[in-house]
């Protein structure tokens, strides 16, 4: 069989695939290991990397040895299913995941945990991933229907030395007796954290090095929690998206000024009255402001005192009279 039968046949003399063919052929027989590893790497894409790396590592012992000995082949963003239909499948997944992550050492990896079906989370799979905790660059939790509080607490127990991006998803209320008794925030050891996303549906509070964050997405039920977070300081925030889902008003003890020295983009989604937030907020570098407001709070005084935001170039007065205004939408109830 001539290999050329797999190539485009029309312009043979100008077909660069012949070169690729030779490189590939030569790689099998005598190219340097590093060169063959590079060829393996170039055949991979983020979307298909698991199939790609399995393909080359399952051809023969020589290719397998090279693939297993090349950490950069194993560091593409990895999705991990925490649900398993049986203990046997879960146990196998834990072993395979542990081996996969070991091959990526000492490089950092990005992992998103999902749950294909709602049900029991296989802790063995979770622990296999957490064995590589110091090398996790990004972690995303997408469990159904919500992220259990115990999962967040377990993650917080790890030394996440390289973690830069943390997405906790929609965190459920912790209804355990211990949680009721313990009101202290759960501290995370994340010295490199830059980005945090969290939708807090319950009372679980976390503690991260807020001052070093550059991007924050935070949704919770009360303005008090928001100010509890923000008063700890987030001077380096560049992008923030804050939503308050409840209608409770800000407690007097939380009425403290909040200064965002580097903030450029701010999205606010408030069901409650926005006034207390705007009263205490300063953001001199803000260029984009997006508001989602309840209709009842549209004409609040702090808005009238503000300058028109750059995100609404058509504004001449503020609150905006442009329809539709790119900076403001109304809360759909």
């Amino acid at each position: 069989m001539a290999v050329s039968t797999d190539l485009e046949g029309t312009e043979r003399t100008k077909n660069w695939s012949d070169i690729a063919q030779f490189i590939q052929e030569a790689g099998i027989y005598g190219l340097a290991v590093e060169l063959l590893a590079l060829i393996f790497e170039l055949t991979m894409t983020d979307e298909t990397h698991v199939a790609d790396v399995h393909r080359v590592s399952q051809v023969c012992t020589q290719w397998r040895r090279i693939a297993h000995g090349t950490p950069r082949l194993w560091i593409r963003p990895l999705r991990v299913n925490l649900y398993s239909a049986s203990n046997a499948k879960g146990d196998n997944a834990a072993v395979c995941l542990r081996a996969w992550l070991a091959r990526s050492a000492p490089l950092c990896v990005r992992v998103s945990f999902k749950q294909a079906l709602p049900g029991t989370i296989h802790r063995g799979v979770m622990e296999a991933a957490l064995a590589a905790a110091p090398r996790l660059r990004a972690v995303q939790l997408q469990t159904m229907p919500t992220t259990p509080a115990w999962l967040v607490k377990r993650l917080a127990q790890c030394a996440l030395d390289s973690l830069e991006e943390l997405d906790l998803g929609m965190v459920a209320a912790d209804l355990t007796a211990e949680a009721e008794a313990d009101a202290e925030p759960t501290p995370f050891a994340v010295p490199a954290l830059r980005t945090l996303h969290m939708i807090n549906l319950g009372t679980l509070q976390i503690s991260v090095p807020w001052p070093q964050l550059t991007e924050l997405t935070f949704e919770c039920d009360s303005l008090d929690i928001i100010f509890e977070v923000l008063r700890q300081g987030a001077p380096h925030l560049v992008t923030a998206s804050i939503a308050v889902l409840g209608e409770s008003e800000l407690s007097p003890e939380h009425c403290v000024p909040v200064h965002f020295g580097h903030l450029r983009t701010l999205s606010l989604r408030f069901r409650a009255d926005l006034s207390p937030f705007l009263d205490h907020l300063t953001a001199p570098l803000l260029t984009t402001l997006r508001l989602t407001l309840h209709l009842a709070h549209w004409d609040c005084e702090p808005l009238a005192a503000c300058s028109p935001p750059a995100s609404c170039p058509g504004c001449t007065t503020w609150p905006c009279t442009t329809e539709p205004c790119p900076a403001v939408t109304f809360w759909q109830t």
Partner: protein
Amino acid sequence: MVLLVTSDNEQFQTEKDIVERSVLIKNMLEDVGESDQPIPLPNVSSSVLKKVTQPSTGPTEIDVRGRYLSTASTTVESPSRPPILEQSQDETRKRTTDISEWDQKFITVDQEMLFEIILAANYLDIKSLLCRRWLQDGSQHDQGARPPEEIRKLFNIVNDFTPEEEAQIKKENEWAEDR
């Protein structure tokens, strides 16, 4: 003609249809339109650019097991066979394929140069040089990947895994499917 400037500041006048094999350059040309402005290639040296922009000429043949043939339409046995081929059940079978004279010269570079060429091909986005199609066949397989058995067949590689390794591979694949 298109003017390219390499990392070591050499200038190359090259035919447009040749440089447009590079998706990167093709997109740059589309962006700037008709222009005499030189296109800078800061990640490609002149020696590498020569290799990836020279036009090809007529066909000759290679023994795809690893050695070029000096004349067209001749097939000879590879003088030094790799261990993996020593295990082949079809030791006498010879496979040939066409390759241009230029391509032949292209390939007779040392491995360091080959490494640079592959990196340059990646930067310039010359897909045919990136070997992707050799391990992928989107029309026949899910996710565009050739299964290992087809790669073995394509390159005449012997499956030398032990039963224990085969069992491990099977478990890997089960996990990959459930993931």
